[in-house]
């Protein structure tokens, strides 16, 4: 029996371990932090949890359409490939910091990468 990626990563506990580290990296990055609304930190934090859950192969309700709609206002403000790459880089760095096995990191990055066109409304 094969466990899902989400299970192999450690499920919700893994998301909780990762989210603060990931969110701090994103907020510290001047090339992207302007896209993260700082007036509602708790709300943003919650969105990061949802994003990580999805990227870890966990249960989520995101459709491609949802991702497009959610990011359309950011695309209008200039969200582009370099920003996507920066966020992906922080996700990878977070998992490396948590000593996640390389093959699991690859699977996560693959899921994250698959959102590219929807996020950038391409």
């Amino acid at each position: 029996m094969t466990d899902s990626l989400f299970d192999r990563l450690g499920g919700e506990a893994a998301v909780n371990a990762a989210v603060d580290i990931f969110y701090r990296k994103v907020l510290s990055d001047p090339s992207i932090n302007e896209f993260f609304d700082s007036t509602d930190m708790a709300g943003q934090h919650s969105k990061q949890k949802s994003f990580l859950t999805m990227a870890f192969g966990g249960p989520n309700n995101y459709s491609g359409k949802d991702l497009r709609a959610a990011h359309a206002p950011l695309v209008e403000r200039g969200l582009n490939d370099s920003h996507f790459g920066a966020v992906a880089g922080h996700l990878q760095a977070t998992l490396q910091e948590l000593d996640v096995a390389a093959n699991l990191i690859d699977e996560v990055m693959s899921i994250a990468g698959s959102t590219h066109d929807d996020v950038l409304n391409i």
Partner: protein
Amino acid sequence: MPAIHYGASRIELQADESVLQALIRSGIDTPYSCESGCCQTCMLQAEDGELPAESQASLIGKLRSQGYFLPCVCHPQTDIYLRSEEADNIYQVTHLIEKTIYNSEVCRLRLARPTGFDYQAGQFINVRSPDQKQLIRSYSLSSLASEDDYLEIQVRLKRNGKLSSQLYNSATAGDKFEIQGANGNCFYQSESQQSLLLIATHTGIAPLFGLLRQAIAQGHLGQVFVYYGSREIEGLYLLPELQALAQQHSNVNITACLSNLEASLTDESTAVRRGRANDLAFAEHPQLQGYDLYLCGNAEMVKAAQMQGFMVGAGMDRIFTDPFEYKELRKTARE
């Protein structure tokens, strides 16, 4: 667009408009204050319709299951049918037992505790007077349920403050009030050994004082650092009581902070520091991994401190906030 049904009225929501905004736009006199999902003044009850999660998230389960929601953060996808009679059953009657004036701005009110009224020190109640049911304001509790048989709030007289001026100037023992609550999650919920950082401005000290007393009552062992800020020395009205706690408990550390750098100090040796409470707190605690943070008072300070605390290592879910969001009383919104 979905519509709101209120009595005989049917109000079609405009794009991006909250239920509250739609009601106000249509001339319906419904109470509200912070307009940001914090104070729960605007709470209404829906009889039918799908309530978005965000509009109920901060309410306790009992209220959620009865269809209560916060219209200021409600952007429904379906029609919503509101209960048109006021949801009176959530307010309880109380009366003023004692009022103490602390200084030219702040008074302390002790209200009778309704039977069965349960709360955690640091939570807040919504208060109104029985003959002005639309005038509702939130005040945080500084009393301790296990030790006090009254509910205590500390009220700051606000310029043009409708309820605060009544409470400060004219409320007297025996006056009846109605209260709802307790609400909020800024109450003691730390492990005993944890280091705690408490930051308050002005009357934000009230809930933190209650919270501190609760921590002590529950035998908190870790270090507790309190940064209490005001512009002027007169504003540090609770300092004597805090210092008394610090004298009795060696793990409690109080730092009083004056943000008005030109404020005069009558006695330089009273350990009052110059600077903003949050700036001094983070300068002295540059790394907060493993700390629990409790932040109360000025909304801008609370938001800034939440960000500062998180970025230097405090877990997001270990930062508890009670921002004092004041009702926008101007006719045109601030920029």
